[in-house]
């Protein structure tokens, strides 16, 4: 599965040296891909960075344009006006990633290890894991906002049971947003975990048990370290899009004014306020922070030690 490829990206680097020697043919073959990346990734990226340093200029009453410049001030707002959004973005994403990992790991372990030797059942369950993709992400999130709506049966029952105060609701709370993020990204966590665990050699676990490790110790000392490639790719595939997500936290779906994430701010700056420089600065900053976090994470988990 394509998700597994992500797990092994570190080992591919070693092969680069060899491909350099193959010279011209390699470059010819790479050219279309490089051109595509230059046109549709690098160019927009530089454009985004350039805009992020500009300043707004009123074109008309209804519309605002901008002027290129070197306005570092745009970035300073990130640490002041939008600090709560930054904190929310990363803390929601972190909690939802952890929740997705806790839900997905046992699921992936069950399908990949416990059901070994029953490939039909395995494939059926993997299909079920990705089945939600057959329905639009927006529709599914809307469905949850119906399920959790203030008039819903669930909220009513929880209020009756006293778990929610009579004036307390689910929609608009951080819980609803984290729930939505977790739900929407679980397949991206489960699939890379599954591809790693499916290949996990049971004999290592038996060797662990043979060497006096209790089942718990076998898990922490053998199973988990050996499944780290899956854990790393799974957490990256969920954390990165979660941190930039603006659907779940949106007022139209599961969020409220109190749950706005950086993505929601960027959306409103671009679309409602037409404040391109600030929106771009926030986007660049979001990317930079994600890059730093991911870089530290990959470095700390020592992916070079992994197979």
């Amino acid at each position, binding site marked *: 599965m394509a998700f597994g490829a992500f797990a092994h990206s570190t080992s591919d680097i070693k092969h680069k040296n060899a491909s350099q020697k193959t010279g011209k043919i390699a470059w010819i073959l790479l050219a279309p891909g490089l051109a595509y990346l230059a046109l549709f990734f690098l160019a927009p990226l530089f454009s985004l960075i350039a805009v992020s340093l500009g300043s707004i200029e009123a074109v008309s009453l209804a519309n605002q344009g901008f002027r290129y410049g070197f306005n570092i001030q745009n970035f300073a707002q990130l640490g002041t006006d939008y600090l709560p959004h930054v904190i929310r973005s990363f803390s929601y994403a972190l909690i939802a990633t952890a929740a997705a990992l806790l839900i997905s790991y046992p699921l992936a372990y069950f399908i990949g290890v416990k059901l070994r030797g029953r490939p039909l059942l395995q494939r059926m369950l993997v299909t079920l894991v990705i089945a939600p993709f057959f329905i639009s992400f927006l529709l599914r999130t809307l469905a949850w906002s119906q399920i959790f709506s203030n008039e819903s049966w669930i909220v009513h029952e929880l209020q009756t049971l006293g778990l929610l105060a009579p004036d307390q609701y689910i929609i608009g709370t951080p819980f609803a947003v984290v729930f939505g993020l977790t739900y929407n990204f679980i397949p991206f966590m489960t699939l890379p975990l599954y591809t790693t665990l499916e290949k996990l050699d049971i004999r290592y676990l038996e060797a662990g*048990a043979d*060497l006096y490790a209790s089942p718990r110790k076998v898990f922490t000392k053998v199973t988990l370290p050996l499944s780290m490639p899956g854990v790393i790719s799974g957490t990256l595939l969920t954390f990165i899009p979660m941190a930039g997500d603006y659907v779940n936290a949106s007022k139209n779906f599961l969020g409220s004014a109190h749950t706005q994430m950086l993505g929601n701010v960027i959306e409103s700056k671009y679309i409602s306020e037409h404040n391109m420089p600030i929106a771009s600065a926030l986007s660049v900053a979001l990317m930079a922070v994600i890059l730093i976090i991911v870089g530290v994470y990959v470095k700390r988990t020592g992916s070079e030690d992994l197979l």
Partner: protein
Amino acid sequence: MNQNSTFSGADLELIDVRKEFPGFTALEDMDLKIPAGQFFALLGPSGCGKTTTLRLIAGLDEPTKGKILLGGKDITNTKPHERPINTVFQSYALFPHMSVLENVAFGLRQRKVADPLAKAADALKLVQLEHLSARRPQQLSGGQQQRVALARALVNRPSLLLLDEPLGALDLKLRREMQIELKAIQVEVGLTFLHVTHDQEEAMDMADTVAVMNKGRIEQMGAPEALYDRPKTAFVAKFLGQSNLFIGNVEDENANTISINVAGNKISVPKARAEKHKGKIAIGVRPEKAFFHEEEPKLGAGYNLIGPGEIIDIRFTGVSNQYLIDIPKIGEITVFAQNIGKSPVTQVGQKVWVSWKVEHSFGLSDLPEKTTGA
């Protein structure tokens, strides 16, 4: 486990152990006793249940019924990590995410033994790999990995060490070297070793006692010399070394020997070396105990003689020549002659008689599916 206790093995006892898997029985009511400090080999073809036996003893599988005792204590229902037993796995199963040293220290750390790294380093010294302790297992050769696996098991000073075809992945020369080393280590540390293998030479070379397994049962058990000298079933006669087997009805009997008639040839076996004394029986002889003669020899009552036949194939194997001789109405017989400088010189097509001492015959309890040959 007391770390200060003397370093010695415990005896293992299997009582009526049975293992059924859906659709087949891997192990049929096995009784087995291995005395402490012995090098015991379970020998058999693949699928005979020897690895299943090992997994039951290690605790990796549960027996359908029966009891497993180690040092007199019932361990049938204990988990693998609670058993003072370690295994050298066929695949070695060295943890790829740990250094060689950490692999060896793993068991010590789990049991919270003091100073695990120093003890692991000592164990690596025993297998002469201390210079590779910082490497990853996947950076080592097969033979080196095998020795790390051995060190990782031995360092825990288990009461019983299980070896699951540990030399199977090595080339022949390295395998013979490791056999000698393994045996030396066993003698040195005095542990009980249970070695599972399909290589009969390996089993005979290293073990004090060999048990030959077939179809989930132990066919015969004993010292290698005794097993080789007097196999009791056709399976053992053919699996452990090679045998020429002859089938016939017992037609003659005197005080010490019985004889069968095979296509007009009289073949005798001492009564003490025969499992059955009446009816249709199989008598065998090892190929290296048989000789061939280019002229019909005059031999006394102490010899069996069959022939004439024809040499149909000669195979040179270095230390010996293997002659395949076809005897009309009997079939093909194998005779080994050592190349000691005066080896019988002959060629394919030569007419020969085959003889061997009656005392080298052995009588089996069952009949083989095929009569002669290896």
